[in-house]
């Protein structure tokens, strides 16, 4: 009796969960499917879910008729470049806050969090003018700098929460053995902290890949990453649903896959360590 009733509730919950998650996932599924349709089928009034003539024509068109690879490469350079540069700056800071705590550490962390709350429009004009004067408008270097700075607080916080979990006894033991601080960092701390550092890198690549304020404002044809390239489909090419879908699919699939690997880290990183 008890077994069948628990089976029944499991079945009900399963159906409910699959229905709701299917609805949430549907726009993405629909985009992926539409990317394989012809333009005529894409706007058909009686659209078919799977029964249509699958074609790769849209992908070929997007790759041939637009500088897709340039924008893809821009996205790669900007997201990975800014994440690596950010790590280089954030690791020492997080290390020092996690292992040499002072009275000010907590305030400093809160202050870093508060810089995330500065609305970008508050610094929009000066950044735009400075970029113009220094010739950084529409350059990858300029965007790498901006992405590094806006994600730096998240990186420091995330690394800080990882470093805090490393027992300081290990560091003390290595110190007893006469290791210098440099040796301590490179031979003891970094190997233990590597998983945390890797997750920080992953999450920041995702955040920088999808950032869509500065990338839209500070770039034109040359340095535009995929966010800005897709925005150019807003009109009138947006009416070509199948091509829009193909371009979109190519922009989101790499990051969807990375994202699924980083679920846990996402929680920790974006909640500033409040939820683990």
């Amino acid at each position, binding site marked *: 009796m008890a077994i069948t009733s628990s089976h029944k509730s499991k079945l009900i919950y399963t159906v409910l*969960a*699959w229905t709701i998650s299917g609805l949430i996932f549907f*726009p993405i599924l629909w985009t992926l499917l539409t990317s394989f349709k012809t333009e005529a089928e894409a706007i058909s009034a009686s659209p078919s879910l799977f029964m249509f003539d699958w074609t790769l024509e849209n992908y070929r068109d997007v790759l041939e008729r637009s500088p897709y690879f340039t924008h893809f490469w821009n996205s790669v350079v900007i997201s990975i470049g800014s994440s690596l540069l950010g790590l280089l700056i954030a690791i020492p800071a997080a290390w020092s806050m996690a292992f040499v705590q002072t009275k000010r550490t907590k305030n400093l962390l809160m202050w870093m969090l508060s810089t995330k709350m500065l609305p970008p429009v508050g610094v*929009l004009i000066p950044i735009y003018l400075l970029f113009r004067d220094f010739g950084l408008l529409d350059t990858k270097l300029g965007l790498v700098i901006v992405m590094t700075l806006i994600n730096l607080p998240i990186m420091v916080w995330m690394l800080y929460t990882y470093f805090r979990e490393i027992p300081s006894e290990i560091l003390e033991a290595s110190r007893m053995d006469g290791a210098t601080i440099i040796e301590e960092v490179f031979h003891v701390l970094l190997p233990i902290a590597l998983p945390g550092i890797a997750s920080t890198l992953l999450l920041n690549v*995702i955040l920088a890949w*999808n950032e869509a304020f500065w990338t*839209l404002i500070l770039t034109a044809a040359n340095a535009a990453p995929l966010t800005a390239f897709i925005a150019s489909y807003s009109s009138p090419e947006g009416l070509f649903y199948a091509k829009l879908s193909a371009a979109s699919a190519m922009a989101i699939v790499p990051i969807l896959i*990375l994202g*699924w690997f980083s679920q846990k880290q996402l929680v920790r990183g974006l909640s500033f360590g409040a939820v683990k």
Partner: protein
Amino acid sequence: MATTQSRTLAKFMLMPSVLLLLGWMIVPLCMTLYFSFLDYNLLIPGEHEFIGFLNYEFFITDPAFTESFFNTLLLVGGVLTITICGGIGLAILLDQAIWGRNYVRIMVLAPFFVMPTVSALVWKNMLMNPVNGLFAHFSSWLGMNPIDFFAQVPLLSIIIIVSWQWLPFAALILLTAIQSLDREQLEAADLDGAGPFSKFFYIVLPHLSRAVTAVILIETIFLLSIFAEILVTTSGGPGYASTNITYLIYTQSLLQFDVGGGSAGGIVAVIIANIVAIFLMRLIGKNLEG
């Protein structure tokens, strides 16, 4: 434990982050403040006269400001309400014993990783378009008139799109929090004859308060600055019906080249964000200490 040497080194290692963030915040912010008192338009060369608070006066008394201020509140409030209520529901559902939970999780999480310009364009064209969109097809099958989302309910349409993007995040954080709930507590409540509702309100919800606070904080930071979704769907229209403060300042500074007015708007946005931040930091301070 820490020697003087390591303390000095620690300060040295903190320096780059602190200096960079200070530079990123203070220098441009001071420049914005300075510009906000000037009569400065990029299209009009020559001297930039000091005009006191005139830019602020123009910005705040502009009916567009009032409208976009309330739009910002509606947008942030609407998305927060939808994502937190929906997120709690989803988290509880995904916490149950179900078949294929990992696949369900993957599907629920996916929208969060879709870049804002893609999600906005997919919703705008393929789902909400009044002629060729899927919703229009649905309503004509049902014999109803299709809704022209971005003409009739522009702000609501943007709220729907943004909620779709942020629901996964809320659900994921709340699910993580629910999974750390002490099962024995729920079993004890069962033995005492507590119903599902009292279990939810007296055990689950209080346990989630910390995670809910975190979700509110993080989402608010991002939601106050929604930009791409508006740019590629409505461009703030019709009129100012879907313009938020971020978008208003963008049009003023980079489309009308009014550096002075845009800067005054930027400072106003910073002040609004600060007021919100003070509330949030108090809330977080309370919840994160524990």
